[in-house]
């Protein structure tokens, strides 16, 4: 059962990833990215990381992708015919290098990284709950958590400043 779920979710993630990269219309790309995020949230659930799965959907698929959609509609990029994207040698070379990078990552993972880890840790179920995440977040990771608030403040100020009508 878990195996079937994994392969279905993995297939959805991969197909939506390909479609995201190849669609001409950015609105469609956003939709496929949201599909991809939902598939990843399902995979997080399979890995018993409930809290991360929830914030994946709320923050990523909810907040960040709505921001993308807003910007696309603000800039009125619905028709992409002006933006000619033709195949040229530089682009083919780029794809070849990217594929080489992917093969390399897979090779490294297969040779070293996952070896000996075939079974989920029995502790995993307790870690991924809101309780487990909160416990770790407010004890061992309290300082980074507080620093995150400063980061978000800086981002808010920066975004307002950048999007202001006139820079003076």
């Amino acid at each position: 059962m878990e195996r079937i779920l994994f392969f279905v979710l993995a297939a959805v993630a991969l197909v939506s990833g390909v479609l995201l990269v190849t669609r001409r219309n950015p609105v469609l790309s956003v939709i496929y990215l949201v599909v991809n995020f939902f598939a990843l949230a399902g995979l997080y659930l399979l890995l018993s990381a409930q809290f991360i799965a929830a914030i994946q959907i709320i923050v990523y698929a909810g907040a960040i992708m709505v921001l993308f959609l807003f910007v696309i509609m603000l800039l009125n990029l619905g028709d992409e015919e002006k933006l000619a994207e033709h195949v040229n040698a530089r682009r083919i070379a780029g794809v070849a290098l990217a594929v080489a990078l992917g093969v390399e990552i897979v090779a490294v993972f297969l040779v070293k990284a996952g070896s000996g880890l075939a079974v989920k840790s029995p502790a995993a179920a307790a870690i991924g709950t809101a309780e487990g995440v909160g416990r770790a977040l407010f004890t061992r990771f309290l300082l980074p958590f507080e620093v995150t608030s400063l980061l978000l403040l800086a981002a808010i100020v920066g975004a307002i400043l950048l999007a202001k009508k006139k820079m003076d």
Partner: protein
Amino acid sequence: MIPLDYYLILSALLFTFGVIGVVIRRNVIIVFMSIELMLNSVNLTLVGYSAYLGDPTGQMLVFFVIAVAAAEAAVGLGIVIALFRLRRTVNVDEINILKW
């Protein structure tokens, strides 16, 4: 039970798609979304390791990556809007004012 390798390979493939998107697309917003895809593929690796090693550190890192990604999206899209206002384009080949 699924071995961890499956998750790692899936995330490697997703990362590769993200890299391909950054390399071949010229629309700055789609380049941006490809970067988000790459961030997410790394998150999958972190959650996978966290579950298989029974260590919460990976999930903490994912939490902070999501917070940083939210900040990055806000600032990045602000830059896109400012650039569009200035240059009337989202084509990264035409945005070269920093090129010497």
